[in-house]
């Protein structure tokens, strides 16, 4: 085996092993970069290894590369969308949606589950903070579903999976980060937002399908609740009143991007202001709330950017050790043909998703594989959306599945971890089916960007 290949494998193994110690991911990345800089320099200087590796053009470039992150205009959207999500969370919009929509759908078999999904999709189109969505949906819906004797796994799986839609359905900080890393005109933030829209909706619809079909086949999973009022005009009016602010925000943010009134970065600022106003009108905005939301935004943005810092060091050292060539030739050397390469990458990302979260995968893996995908002549928007669906799924796959952790924390005590695992399995299958559909019918991802911009 060539030295480069050994080093690249060694670097990834070091990263994986150190990660398992539980030391923060960001610093494990940075530290691994330092360790392998030392290995690389020693190999070249003391053992005469025939490598194009030196300190100045690897770790030595840290300030230039980190500055490149600081001066990115696109990335301003990241903290802004986070702030928007946190403010929105404070505004109590979700609670109002839940209270009104339960009356609308409650009487149908599986109606509570459908309600959760519909609200989840609406929330997803306004924000992308998965923690918030999962916690909110779990807290609001699980007690009601338990009261009505829903199957524990069915109930908790629905709330958990629905909460992850926000990372795929735009606006999404994951898509912002992906566009920044890809840095090509054909996969800009706007393209990716457009491209993810239909697949996201499709997933939501498939979730709803599951929530309706499963109780039809197994009625005891979701008994029809008794004693609910009839659906009349006042109920519908309630729902409308609850939906209007959400719809306004969706229109303001996604609408202004899709209509070209604002760049995605600008739209993120408009969204932040919109969420602030909604919290204000809901009477929930005061100084302590604003303060804690701002602190929260800083900590969330900072930990994502911290991973960015570690990842940029990791990448430059990996590149110095020949990582690009190794991975490119490994992928292109696969005997499955172009589509096989894509499937291999996606399968790899799905597996990585069990252990890593989306930030590391986006920052390290996406830039490594994107050039290969382009070289093979595939549409980068299509591929990135497939990649994004894989990463959304990673929130649901143990052992490191953040949505699972979140839901575990808010679920009533009678819901056990095994219920959660059992409950998300059907949704993981739905995710894979959706992945297959988008893989086979690329137009689901590419059609909207093409009609919007051509």
């Amino acid at each position, binding site marked *: 085996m060539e030295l480069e290949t050994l080093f690249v494998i060694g670097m990834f193994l070091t990263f994986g092993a150190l990660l398992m110690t539980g030391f923060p991911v960001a610093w494990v990345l940075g530290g691994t970069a330092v360790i392998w800089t030392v290995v690389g320099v020693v190999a070249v200087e003391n053992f005469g290894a025939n490598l*194009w590796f030196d300190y*100045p*053009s690897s770790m*030595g*470039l840290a300030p*230039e*590369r980190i*500055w*490149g992150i600081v*001066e990115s*205009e*696109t990335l301003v959207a990241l903290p802004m969308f986070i702030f928007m999500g946190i403010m929105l969370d404070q505004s109590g919009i979700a609670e109002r949606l839940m209270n009104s929509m339960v009356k609308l759908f409650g009487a149908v078999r599986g109606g509570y589950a459908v309600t959760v999904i519909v609200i989840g999709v609406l929330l997803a189109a306004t924000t992308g903070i998965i923690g918030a969505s999962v916690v909110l949906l779990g807290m609001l819906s699980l007690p009601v579903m338990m009261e009505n004797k829903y199957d524990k796994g069915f109930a908790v799986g629905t709330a958990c999976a629905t909460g992850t839609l926000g990372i795929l359905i735009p606006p999404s900080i994951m898509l912002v980060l992906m*566009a920044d890393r890809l*840095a*090509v*005109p054909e996969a*800009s*933030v*706007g*393209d990716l937002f457009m491209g993810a829209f239909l697949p996201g909706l499709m997933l939501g619809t498939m979730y709803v399908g599951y929530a309706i079909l499963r109780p039809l086949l197994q009625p005891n999973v979701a008994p029809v609740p008794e004693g609910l009022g009839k659906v009349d005009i006042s109920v519908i009016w309630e729902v409308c009143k609850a939906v209007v602010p959400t719809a306004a925000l969706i229109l303001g943010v996604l609408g202004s991007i*899709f*209509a*070209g*009134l*604002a*760049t*995605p970065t600008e739209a993120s600022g408009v969204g932040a202001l919109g969420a602030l106003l909604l919290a204000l009108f809901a009477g929930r905005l005061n100084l302590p709330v604003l303060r804690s939301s701002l602190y929260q935004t800083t900590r969330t943005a900072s930990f994502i950017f911290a991973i960015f810092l570690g990842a940029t060091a990791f990448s*430059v050292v990996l*590149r110095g050790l020949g990582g*690009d060539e190794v991975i490119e030739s490994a992928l292109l050397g696969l005997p499955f043909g172009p589509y096989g390469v894509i499937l291999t990458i996606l399968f790899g990302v799905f597996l990585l998703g069990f252990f890593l979260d989306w930030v590391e995968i986006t920052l390290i893996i996406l830039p490594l594989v994107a*050039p290969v995908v382009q070289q093979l002549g595939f549409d980068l928007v299509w591929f990135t959306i497939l990649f994004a669906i894989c990463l959304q799924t990673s929130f649901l796959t143990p052992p490191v599945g953040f949505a699972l952790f979140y839901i575990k924390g808010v679920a009533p005590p009678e819901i056990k971890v095994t219920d959660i695992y059992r409950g998300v399995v059907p949704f993981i299958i739905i995710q894979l089916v959706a992945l297959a559909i988008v893989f086979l019918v690329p137009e689901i991802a590419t059609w909207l960007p093409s009609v*919007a*911009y*051509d």
Partner: protein
Amino acid sequence: DDLRWKMPVAFATNLPGLGSPAAWVADNLTTASNGSIRVRVYEPGELVPPFDILQSVSDGKVSAGYTWIGYDQGKVPAVPLFAAVPFGMKPWAYIGWYYYGGGHDMLQQVYANKGFNVHAQLCGIIGPETAGWYANKIETLEDYDGMKIRFAGLGGKVLERLGASVTMIPGGELYQALEKGTIDATEFSMPAIDQILGFNQVVKYNLFPGWHQQFTAQYLLINKDEWDDASESQQALVEASCTAATTLGLAEGEYRNGAVLAGFQDEGVQADQIPREVLLELKAVTEEVLEEESERDADFKRVYDSQQEFMETYKVWDSRAYLPSDL
């Protein structure tokens, strides 16, 4: 000694004229030197963000870099004069001044005066850019007033004076911004490159002449210590390769642009001329801006004066010697 250069580039090597010479130079140096100079090209952002190529070459973090040096005008105010000058020289006039009029030595001096430890070598040039892609026709100077336009460099400063709202939206977002009307107009490069970015699919007015960039020059920047350590034969080979790349880059653009432009017109793109009165006005404002820059930076003044002086003597030749294009 054998040289191994890591060479980050500012433009993707698939961009004709702009990025392609970098890949050619890298290959040619290895082949022609029989492996005594080996150059590895790093596409934009792979190693160093494009705007930091000068810094990292000067610091010796990478041995060489290939870039449009105008990106560094925030650090070295005089470099735009070597990269693209509004109402500046035609490409062959520019290389005349660069090779024979003292330009090459002045450039080394300009970098040294700002403390940058680099050797710069002209290593690619393309002809005029288009004056941009516009949603609406430009008929008078007032049309620039209030226009939302993406326009780089000194030309941007000129348009700002005329009341345009100049932004620097990242290249990746240009297409959408233009399509959606976030901006009314943008410039980027010459037709063979603009085509790759797809502006012709979005707006129908492609304006000429490219008053803001009659020539666009790229340079190979080499760490000065690395350059001084190179043998004379290696240095000679770098100089010769870059001179050849300059010719090839210009040739590639000239060869392709006509066909591309004709293709645009078949698709209904209107290749309009900016009216002469407007050009005269733009020229007057440009001179104001350049004079101001001269007052601010001694190197800028020295280079600008040298270029002005050359253009003055060149004028009579330029206006008489070439056939009018309609003949």
